[in-house]
């Protein structure tokens, strides 16, 4: 395919990457924990969407109306537990890693390790595409980008305009002073974790639209998600979107021009370069940001 096509398709898929990464980035920036269970949330979101579509024939996209609130509650509950346990930062990485392993195994138990895919009949989005001249865009990628815009835009506005959003940014900047002005870190943490999990549900659904699922997929997302988080700047919502698109474009172009297997190498080099040159994120300073 032409490089332009690859770049544009990549940019659209970048929306999916953004949605996968945004929740992790913001919780990392505000709550200072790297919550690996986020990947389990995405996985669960994907599988739940899959199940709801195949069992009850719900339109796959609409499944988020169910999965998002469900995972919101799950995410908030988990955060509550973490808060109680008061785990140190590096240990939180280990703890959530353990939980991720448990979760993937549980998924494997319920849905088996075989590849699952939304049946074509129930999933019109996988087959349809939009054509613009010589460029073809699968509907699933357009949806991904669209959702990303909405979610990121909404998050950006919320972080700037609402009291809760400002509270989160203040909390990330200076915890004790924020608390002195009434910001309750426990409730804030739960709200944030819940929202992150809900965004993961959306990401999962979008993933399920265009890919086949297997429990081990959760680990395959690590590279992309961390690339987006670090390039976008930890806690920066708009930065994450830009980084998502960038990663998408890079992956697409490298895939088309060199080979799909060269992608991890390129991404990795990009991360290292970014850390060397601009550790706060390539796009830090733009947009509201949470950690700032």
């Amino acid at each position, binding site marked *: 395919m032409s490089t332009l096509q690859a770049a544009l398709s990549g940019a659209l898929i970048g929306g999916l990457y953004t949605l996968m990464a945004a929740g992790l980035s913001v919780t990392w920036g505000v709550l200072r924990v790297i919550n690996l269970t986020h990947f389990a949330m995405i996985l669960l979101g994907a599988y739940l969407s899959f199940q709801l579509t195949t069992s009850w024939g719900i339109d796959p996209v609409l499944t988020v109306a169910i999965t998002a609130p469900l995972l919101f509650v799950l995410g908030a509950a988990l955060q509550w537990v973490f808060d109680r346990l008061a785990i140190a930062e590096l240990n939180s990485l280990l703890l959530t890693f353990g939980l991720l392993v448990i979760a993937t195994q549980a998924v494997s138990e319920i849905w088996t390790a075989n590849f699952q895919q939304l049946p074509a009949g129930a999933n019109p989005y996988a087959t349809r595409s939009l054509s613009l001249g010589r460029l073809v865009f699968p509907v699933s990628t357009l949806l991904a980008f669209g959702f990303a815009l909405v979610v990121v835009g909404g998050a950006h506005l919320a972080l700037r305009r609402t009291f809760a959003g*400002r509270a989160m*940014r203040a909390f990330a900047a200076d915890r004790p*002073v924020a608390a*002195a*002005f*009434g*910001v309750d*870190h426990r409730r804030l943490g739960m709200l944030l974790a819940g929202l992150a999990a809900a965004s993961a549900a959306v990401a999962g659904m979008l993933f399920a639209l265009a890919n086949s699922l297997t429990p081990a997929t959760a680990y395959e997302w690590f590279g992309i998600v961390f690339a987006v988080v670090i390039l976008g700047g930890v806690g920066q919502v708009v930065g994450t979107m830009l980084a998502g698109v960038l990663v998408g474009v890079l992956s697409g172009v490298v895939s088309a021009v060199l080979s799909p297997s060269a992608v991890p190498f390129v991404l990795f080099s990009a991360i290292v370069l970014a850390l060397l040159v601009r550790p706060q994120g390539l796009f830090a300073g733009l947009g509201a940001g949470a950690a700032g």
Partner: protein
Amino acid sequence: MLEVGELDAWYGQAQALWGVSLTVGDGEVVCVVGPNGAGKTTLVHAIGGLHRQLRGHIRLGGADLAGIAPHRVSEHGVSVVPEGRRVFAHLSVHENLCLGAYRKGARAAHRETLAGVHELFPRLAERARQPAGSLSGGEQQMLAIGRALMAQPRLLLLDEPSLGLAPLVVDEVFDAIGVINRRGVSILLVEQDVERALDLADRAYLLSEGRVVTAGTSAELRASDTIRRSVLGY
């Protein structure tokens, strides 16, 4: 209105305050002076909810604040202007101010309060969209005070507002504090600049090595040389 009684405070194993007692009456301006390391900031943090290892009581209009969760302190009508300003650097001036009104009791009227703050500090209105970190020291101090006012406090705690500011700017800041007091807010002012503090305050406490050494009206303290000896050692 504020009554601190026999307050002890610790940082881990090190005790910072020993049996500190003071009062602030309704509408009063009270200052706390003393040498570095005397525990002035600890005292402010303890009253304002930023420090929790405490023993003793801190009563504000009947409620005991010592040891309650930090985020609940502001609900009782105490607001802090921390040492070094500690504005939220990456939030805009406007957002900083709105955050000040975060507590439930202050949210409803936050637009009116904001107007009042803008009237007091017109420069904040001019710079509403700028990130707080880009403001000068004096402007940040005004922002920090404005932020604290947004919570509609009954008692305003100020920790070394003159720190790092040019004299003219300090003038402005202290004038503003005077205005705030005249609007009915009680003030507890901790300061290194003894002269200015005594000029502004009705009463003063001298804190040294974590204990109250002397207390009295500003006139009394100005007349004695206890303060100079405490700070300079002679």
